[in-house]
């Protein structure tokens, strides 16, 4: 196709929230666009589309990433968890319950990304990963307020619900 502007496509398989999908995608499609436009999973949001706001955060093979910067075609064979896949049936994920209890959102636009990012933060802390504010790199860091703020810095909230977001994550971390 070199020299033309016709789209290139590829067929990939993805496990999304426990369901296998075989999808033919334009190679240019981000994971975010595939989730929203092909699979009708509109929880993950398109905020900046440059990896700077975190509204598109989902988990790929258990790790949080920016779905807007991720080419879908490069994920062939991966497992994706979106905000729609956090709950266990009608039972909310503990982080979802904590966000409600702590009033950790206002307009809600950034919330799916905040929730998926928080699930990632909890897993990273459980694995003993340090952050840049961790004083002792040889120790296993505890998720105090400073640690949560640093680790969640890739998720912006224009309503400014940060105080309650930190409280919600702190409660689940305990």
């Amino acid at each position, binding site marked *: 196709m070199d020299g033309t502007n016709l789209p*290139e496509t590829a067929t990939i398989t993805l496990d999304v929230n426990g369901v296998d999908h075989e999808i033919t995608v334009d*190679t240019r499609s981000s994971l975010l666009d595939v989730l929203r436009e092909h699979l009708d999973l509109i929880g993950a949001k398109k905020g900046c589309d440059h990896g700077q706001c975190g509204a598109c955060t989902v988990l790929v093979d258990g790790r949080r990433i920016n779905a807007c910067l991720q080419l879908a075609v490069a994920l062939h064979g991966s497992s994706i968890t979106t905000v729609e896949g956090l709950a266990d049936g009608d039972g909310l994920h503990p982080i979802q319950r904590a966000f409600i209890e702590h009033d950790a959102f206002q307009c809600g636009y950034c919330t799916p990304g905040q929730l998926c990012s928080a699930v990632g933060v909890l897993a990273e802390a459980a694995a003993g990963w340090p952050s840049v504010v961790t004083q002792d790199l040889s120790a296993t860091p505890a998720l105090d307020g400073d640690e949560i703020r640093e680790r969640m*810095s890739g998720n912006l909230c224009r309503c400014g619900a940060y105080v309650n977001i930190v409280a919600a994550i702190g409660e689940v971390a305990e």
Partner: protein
Amino acid sequence: MRPFVYERAEEARSAVAAVADRPDAMYLGGGTNLVDLMRLGVAEPARLVDVSRLPYDTVGVRPDGALRIGAAVRNSDLAAHPAVRRAHPLLAQALLAGASGQVRNMATVGGNLLQRTRCAYFQDITKPCNKRNPGSGCPAREGDHRNLAIIGHSEACVATHPSDMAVALAALDAVVHLEGRDGPRTLPLTELYRLPGDDPRRDTVLDPADLITEVTVPALSFGGRSHYRKVRDRASFAFAVVSVAAALDVAGGVVRDCRIAFGAIAPVPWRARRAEEALRGAPATEDAFAAAARAELGQARPLRDNAFKVPLARNLLVRTLTELVVA
């Protein structure tokens, strides 16, 4: 975004072959910079060769203590590795100071080294830029250059290299392992990057088909006494205004040895060899640290709006070294 063919490389040789004869092909790592540049129209590859799943995804420690870091290792995994945290804390800190948790989970070591400048004019295709469009001019010289270079820049380009990790690796004498058209070879990391001169198009000395496969970091006896300190405009998730990576070996109040590199002041991760030279054998005092900073930063030629980076870099180095003496 221009349409492109995607292919996933199965091994390094075939990846090199896939890019070698196609001027419009590029390697894809984590994509955190390249995908964004494609969306902005700055990069327009017709073919992406995905090297992120090549078997260079582990960190090893050699018997002599040297680190072997696969180019496809994600930034977050490298930062969390016990050997990095124990023996090279400045490298762990530099990685953790970069980007966000999400981006670090995606970004590879090889891609981090080859990321492009975040100069606003480079990223805006409606503006002239000698790096993007040779001969079109450099609006940054008279425009917004508060966060651009004070040293090593040229009339044609005043951009800075954005990586934090590369600053620590420059201080640590890291070696880059490559697979290229003529087979494998190695290159000291400080020789990977080139100053812009009158040809700012290329950030590195690499051929487009050169593939980074591994980075090795030699053991450093005093690597445990090291620190990466980054000044930025907000507390987290921002590129550096100035950063410093330093390791210090002090005995009896005298500096026996040291490693120093600056970030965000130059087109390349700036290894501060003049400062190191000035420090070896000197008393481990603030005065000596300030003199060493002056020895390095005396070469600085700041622009209209970034002269503040000279004292900032000096103070950052003095404070970092002073804290390493106490540590």
